[in-house]
């Protein structure tokens, strides 16, 4: 099989961003035989939205975003805490800038497949979560879809499913909508500008699946997020949640240090972890005290046991 868009991306990284090549090669190694098909799928959606030039633009944005992450991690190593403490600071400095958010979201879109440990999370998502969802007309809720790639992947695999996505960022609503249309699943996706935590008042037990990737660490009180997930999920539903631990980013507020903290939040909300995966970058900063990790959890409602 050939993967022309993937080849084009690799060629551009090699030519324009040689410092980033090693990390991208690590992602290719982590993906193995899955690397080409998965990256090609993401790039097919990307180029359908932004044109062929979109690869160059998104790689530039990916490199900028990754540099920002590495720099934040280096400052975290020196300071011992994340840069920001409150959501209000971020709303003013970061989330309210439309242009910055567009670049940010496309940069993050590529981290799914160009960071080795995120590629591993993609495979966990596909093989352990999506593969087990009911095929027939599943109702999926995506909390904070960002670029939309996770939910669109679910719609792509589950031909009769429908998705509702809620995000606080106008950029997310536009980009996720355009990615879903590009993937040919736009008719089954609806995105709404809404604080996902307001879903605490949404109809209970209404979703067969809930997807939430990399939001918890952006919140001051992530417990509320897990309460929302528990409320939305049907008794036999499944949720996929991913979050970063000791992984600094300019817009990370809540510092998870241990994997058990995420499990406890889920349990306290009435959920049970059925499977998990933790990945970390292949390399860290020299003399690093913190190991940045990304953890993915598959969650179910707790029932028939002590609450």
């Amino acid at each position, binding site marked *: 099989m050939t993967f022309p868009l993937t080849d084009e991306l690799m060629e551009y990284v090699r030519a324009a961003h040689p*410092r*980033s090549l090693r*990390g991208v090669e690590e992602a290719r190694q982590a993906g193995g035989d899955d690397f080409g098909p998965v990256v090609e799928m993401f790039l097919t959606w990307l180029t359908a939205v932004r044109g062929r030039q979109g690869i160059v633009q998104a790689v530039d944005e990916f*490199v900028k975003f990754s540099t920002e992450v590495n720099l934040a991690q280096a400052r975290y190593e020196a300071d011992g805490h994340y840069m920001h403490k409150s959501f209000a600071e971020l709303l003013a400095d970061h989330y309210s800038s439309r242009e910055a958010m567009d670049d940010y979201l496309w940069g993050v879109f590529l981290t799914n497949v160009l960071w080795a440990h995120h590629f591993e999370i993609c495979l966990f998502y596909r093989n352990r979560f999506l593969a087990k969802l009911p095929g027939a007309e599943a109702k999926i809720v995506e909390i904070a879809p960002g670029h939309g790639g996770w939910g669109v992947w679910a719609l792509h695999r589950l031909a009769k499913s429908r998705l509702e996505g809620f995000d606080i960022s106008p950029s997310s609503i536009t980009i996720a909508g355009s990615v879903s249309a590009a993937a040919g699943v736009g008719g089954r996706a609806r995105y709404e500008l809404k604080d996902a935590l307001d879903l605490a008042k949404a109809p209970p037990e209404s979703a067969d699946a809930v997807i939430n990737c990399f939001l918890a660490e952006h919140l001051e009180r992530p417990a509320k997020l897990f309460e929302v997930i528990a409320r939305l999920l049907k008794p036999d539903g499944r949720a996929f949640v991913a979050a970063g631990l000791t992984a600094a980013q300019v817009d990370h507020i809540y510092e998870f240090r241990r994997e058990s903290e995420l499990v406890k939040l889920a349990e306290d909300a009435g959920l049970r972890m059925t499977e998990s995966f933790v990945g970390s970058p292949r*390399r860290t900063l*020299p003399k690093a005290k913190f190991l940045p990790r990304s953890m993915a959890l598959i969650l179910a409602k707790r029932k028939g046991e002590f609450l």
Partner: protein
Amino acid sequence: MSDTLARLNEVFHDVFQDDTIVIARQTTAADVEGWDSLMHVTLMINIEKAFGIRFSSSEVAGLKDVGELADLIEARKKP
């Protein structure tokens, strides 16, 4: 400018632990073994300390060669 390059060269020696490195304005990542994305950030943090300045992430991401880096340091040093 030559002072800046000379001081930069010392920082390169420290970060890459290689006293044989000789940088010039046209030096790029391809010329220094191990100059990948993580070492780039480590280099920038050490340069910040050495020169008493602070970079933004977009400045750090966009640097193409040592010449651009030296120019950025010079611009930052101006009152």
